[in-house]
């Protein structure tokens, strides 16, 4: 490969990957919109009756039906729905009367805060545990890590959350209970980013900050545990793969210390697939937040969806579903793209 040509072809293959990425992203998002549209159409609730009531005269019914576009062919209805969804118009929420998008923008930072903290906890503990299990393969430590992971896979998140609340909040009083902040503190700062921890810290409201920390500890640790179960298991299997490679033997023969071989050489090579795993677990935490937020009265997207569900507020449910689905898709594809960019073996 000549130098100049190499750069051009590398750039071309990079652009091709980006184009592929955009196409996959677009079709998947289109599919998401189609699925939510379909779900919205199978709802047994008649949207016209929901607006005009069941005693409305026939001409009012017909006019509202026309205004809602329900007399058009399905494909045309879908086209309208799609155009609105692309411009961020998911209709108004029946429950809050705000546009669904406004509601989602308001609640999303809370979910993001929780999922991010959970992923950080899961990564910081999960990776060392996984490495330890791989290095001490077959020993008691390995078995313990495996069982810890299996419990994480098996335990219902809502039950563990309730039991944690019972123990650490009600019985021991170590942490604050449900909610993001005590009422006393909730007017001591102005929301800027929507992430309470950052807002209070930046405005120097240390009492409010520590109160928020105390509130977030339990749900964040809970999500962190579920993320840890997944990350430690994958780290172990990647590390076992790397430790069996010849370069590890070469590094050992060179006389490098075992710590250096494991943490600098083997883990570095396992890091690339690990990024994918961390992104995936982040995406799953967005989903796990639905149940966690319900238990901890955490005013995020998950609680918004379940509240709307219980009030048959379909616009809000579908809008929320679409946003979580889109975040999921983007995170998955980003991790895939990142993997291709970082791993030299996939550059061909």
């Amino acid at each position, binding site marked *: 490969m000549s130098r100049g040509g190499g750069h051009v072809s590398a750039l071309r293959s990079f652009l091709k990957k980006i184009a592929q990425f955009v196409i996959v992203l677009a079709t998947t998002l289109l599919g998401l919109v189609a699925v939510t549209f379909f779900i919205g159409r199978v709802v*047994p609730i008649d949207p016209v009756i929901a607006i005009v009531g069941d005693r409305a005269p026939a001409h009012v019914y017909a006019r509202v039906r026309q205004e809602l576009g329900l007399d058009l062919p399905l494909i045309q209805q879908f086209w309208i729905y799609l155009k609105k969804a692309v411009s961020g118009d998911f209709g108004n929420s029946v429950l809050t009367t705000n546009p669904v998008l406004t509601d989602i923008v308001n609640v999303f930072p809370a979910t993001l805060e929780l999922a991010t903290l959970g992923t950080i906890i899961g990564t910081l503990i999960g990776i060392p545990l996984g490495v330890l299990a791989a290095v001490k393969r077959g020993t008691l430590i390995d078995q313990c890590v495996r069982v810890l992971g299996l419990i994480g896979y*098996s335990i*219902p998140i809502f*039950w563990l959350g*309730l039991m944690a609340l019972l123990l650490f909040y009600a019985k021991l009083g170590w942490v604050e209970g449900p909610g993001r902040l005590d009422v006393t503190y909730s007017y001591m700062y102005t929301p800027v980013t929507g992430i309470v921890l950052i807002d209070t810290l930046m405005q120097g409201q240390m009492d409010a900050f520590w109160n928020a920390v105390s509130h977030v500890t339990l749900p964040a640790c809970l999500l962190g545990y579920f993320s840890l179960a997944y990350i430690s298991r994958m780290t172990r299997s990647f590390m076992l793969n790397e430790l069996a490679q010849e370069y590890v033997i070469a590094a050992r023969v060179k006389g490098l210390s075992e710590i250096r071989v494991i943490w600098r050489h083997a883990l570095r090579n396992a890091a690339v697939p690990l990024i994918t795993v961390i992104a995936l677990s982040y995406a799953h935490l967005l989903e796990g937040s639905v149940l966690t937020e319900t238990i901890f009265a955490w005013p995020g997207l998950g609680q918004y969806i379940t509240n709307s569900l219980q009030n048959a507020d379909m616009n809000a449910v579908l809008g929320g579903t679409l946003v979580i689905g889109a975040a999921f898709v983007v995170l998955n594809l980003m991790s895939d793209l990142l993997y291709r960019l970082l791993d030299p073996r996939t550059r061909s």
Partner: protein
Amino acid sequence: MTSAASLPQPAGFRAWLLSPEPASRWQARLGRAYLGWRTFTKNPLAVFGLCIVLLLLLVAVFANFLAPYSPIAGGDLRTARLLPPSAAHWLGTDDQARDIYSRVIYGSRITLWVVLLVSVIATPIGLLVGTVAGYLGGWVDTVLMRLTDIFLAFPRLVLALAFVAALGPGIENAIIAIAITSWPPYARIARAETLMVRNSDFIAAVKLQGASTPRIIFGHVVPLCISSVIVRVTLDMAGIILTAAGLGFLGLGAQPPMPEWGAMVATGRNYLIDQWWVAAMPGLAIFVVSLGFNLLGDGLRDVLDPKAAK
């Protein structure tokens, strides 16, 4: 074969099982199953998981005999409400004065029913989509796999939530919703397996004999994909149980007074601080059963896919 099977000593039977030259297809299959069983039983955690699942089956079958009280009808609301665990009520009673132990026992039937129905609905869909996509290739493959990816892109619980919201709460709709969200991984696996066999010589031979495409897919490709898909379904069962329990907890699964474990935890939430057992016991049941399925699935994977075990 009959003469070989009637050998009296167990050692002889073992030798027959492990014979390097099996005389019949059955002997070879039994021999493989025996080897698999030996690998499986070497893993104590997997055996433990199997025991839990068997116990669940037994409890579900004999619920009538095991449960001392009715799961639906409660006792005296003035005296028997929210009693702590005791000799009369092993796991205490709930807010309707019902015996929690009896409800947990009967709840095993619902859990088992959900797992079975979801597998029975989702497995054929996944197999069909995956094998057809893999065998036909071309645009059929592209369309079916894009569809699969779209369903994979949705987080499972959220998609199931949206479906149940549309269909209305209830155990049947919860089962349908979970099945709709379960098939994509099975389709992926079936497609991968199909791609491995579609160009093999025996498929070419069947084609030359004039077999139709459906015949090749259903008669020759599907049987080869079934075992890996079933392993995946087993691995998924814990997830199915957890999703069903999550839906039940949110009030979208089985409706009261059905003794569904997730819904029971939701009831217990109101009495969490003073009567912790109402929420704790059914949740513990969900945990134990899904742990059992996870351990069993892990062990099965080690047996059937030695590559993954390493």
